[in-house]
């Protein structure tokens, strides 16, 4: 048996393949290294592999945002960028004693987010002066809408009747406004996010959602009777289920604050709205999302759904017992 020949044969087989593989690996990096040469002027040198490079890219993005933020200590939104996609934040609101306080602290957060467009929809017959004045004074880029929930739909007292989801009509109005303003099948870049006025949002959340291609999802704290609810993400980075206790078999077992939709998707599917009637408790989000996307299309954010960037806080109803029947305080003073 010619052993030497066998060895030679094996070497001849293996060698080209190993060379090929190393060459392909190199070629994947080289184009990026080529562009990095331009950036080297700015004093950033990267000679790492693709994965580290991707991380440093997103870090650069975050660094850029952070620098802009800390330089800006005035109560005006950051300058409008031509590059960042606009985030359209839809907030339904209604009149109650804590309304002004809630909207005030929400605006203090939103004023830090670049390229933000706030759609505030009041549950009222007319646009109130309280909200109108507040919006005007913030300097935010906003749209002030209103639509009154018909009496038979309104939540009675304090009890949360699951058959009547709050804010639905207002959110639908905002979606309709977006479709009318931008037109169907427009190529306008933007992200749509539903933000309730009593939740708490970190600034990182808005930057996470900016890269949404279809629908992105992330964990939300204090919902479903848990510390947080989150989507289940597999090793391939795809959502395959929901880590919740309350009805995890819902098509989209996620809170309103836990997802964002690309504007193009909203415009491309003009019949997709939140369902008004016959929606079981907790199925409101599913009623919209199932018309837009399937489970496999969801993009997990917040480090593959391992970080909590939004909290479903609820504000206590203030005790106004000392007001009495006639009202102790001057009703002309706005609170």
């Amino acid at each position, binding site marked *: 048996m010619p052993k030497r020949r066998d060895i030679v044969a094996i070497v001849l087989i293996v060698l080209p393949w190993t060379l090929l593989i190393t*060459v392909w690996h*190199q070629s994947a990096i080289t184009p990026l290294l080529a562009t990095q040469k331009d950036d080297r002027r700015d004093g950033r040198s990267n000679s790492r592999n693709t994965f580290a490079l991707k991380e440093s890219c997103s870090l650069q993005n975050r660094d850029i945002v952070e620098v802009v933020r800390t330089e800006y200590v005035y109560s005006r939104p950051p300058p409008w*960028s031509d590059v960042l996609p606009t985030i359209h934040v839809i907030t339904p609101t209604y009149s109650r004693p*804590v309304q002004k306080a809630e909207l005030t602290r929400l605006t203090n957060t939103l*004023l830090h987010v670049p390229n933000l467009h706030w759609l505030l929809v009041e549950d009222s017959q007319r646009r109130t002066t309280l909200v109108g004045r507040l919006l005007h004074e913030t300097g935010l880029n906003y749209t002030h809408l209103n639509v009154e929930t018909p009496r038979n739909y309104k939540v009675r007292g304090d009890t949360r009747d699951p058959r009547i989801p709050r804010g639905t009509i207002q959110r639908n109005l905002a979606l309709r406004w977006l479709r009318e303003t931008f037109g169907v099948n427009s190529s306008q870049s933007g992200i749509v996010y539903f933000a309730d006025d009593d939740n708490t949002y970190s600034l990182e959340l808005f930057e996470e959602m900016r890269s949404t291609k279809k629908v992105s999802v992330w964990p939300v704290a204090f919902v479903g009777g848990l510390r947080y609810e989150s989507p289940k993400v597999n090793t391939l980075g795809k959502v395959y289920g929901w880590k919740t*206790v309350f009805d995890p078999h819902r098509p989209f077992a996620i809170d309103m604050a836990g997802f964002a939709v690309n504007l193009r998707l909203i415009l491309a599917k003009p019949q997709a709205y939140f369902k008004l009637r016959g929606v079981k408790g907790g199925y409101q989000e599913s009623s919209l999302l199932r018309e837009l996307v399937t489970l496999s299309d969801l993009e997990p954010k917040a480090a593959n759904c391992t970080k909590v960037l939004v909290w479903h*806080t609820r504000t206590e109803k203030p005790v106004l017992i000392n007001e009495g029947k006639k009202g102790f305080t001057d009703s002309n003073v706005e609170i």
Partner: protein
Amino acid sequence: MATRMKLKLKTVFVLYFMVSLMGLVYALMQLGQRCDCAEHDMPKDRTISRLRGELHRFQEQIRKSEATKQPQKQPAKPTIFVITPTYARLVQKAELTRLSHTFLHVPQLHWIVVEDSPHKTPLVSDLLLKSGLTYTHLHMPTAKDRKLQEGDPSWLKPRGVEQRNEGLRWLREDRRAQPGGDNQQGVVYFADDDNTYSLQIFEEMRSTQRVSVWPVGLVGGMKYERPVIEGGKVVRFHTGWRPSRPFPMDMAGFALSLKLVLANPESCFDGDAPMGFLESSFLQGLVTMDELEPKADNCSKVLVWHTRTEKPKMKREEALQAQGLGSDRAVEV
């Protein structure tokens, strides 16, 4: 037969070798040219360089506008020292996050956060570090007998006393270590981590000479509590609960000048004071009602609200934890 097979095998090998070689050459040629295949990374790099370009433009603009402002050099604004006591509970991170967003808008603000804890917690340390604010991180645990227990109503024992006093102590010590007239300029404000503050209140309090006061919304069982002003002076307080207190107002309704705090190094909050008298216990030795400065348009506007956040319902979480299936503790909430 054997030679024929060998021949065939040889040709197979040769063919195979030629094919691999050609593939290698092709790959090497690809290397020399600009590759279109990595297109998923190209837009990202393009976006990054465009963003960087924008950033440089904005920074130039800021630098230019600041250069034109230089000739009119204004005296430095007095710093507002905000003392916030905080304690670990589910909503702590959320509360501190949205509070930091408000403070980021206020120039010349120094946040003094005092934790009710025997040591500094990583949650608060990280939050403060990432916030971008000027801050001081302190801690002071409340004595066990002074602490509220599970199920105690919130009004049973005064909260935040030791922490606010610790904040005052640090401030006095810090200022003593840096002598100089400018360092005595400042305003001290006690801000609880669950209240809501408008940006205007901080500008109102900046001009405090001794102690300034203003209305507070959603407190004292009413829509708002406020000092009553006549002739530019506080004559009494409009409140629904025990108006006979020396200073019947909420912690969020007044601010002191730093000078006053430093001139009275012994004054602090009295934890033994009866319910609702905490503010009075502090202010009594410092100022009379006559000397109070009304702000917020002669105390007619509500610029701060005493909001309280609900305790999140954890029934399902507790049930899961009993089964050992609670949510991942490593994830910070």
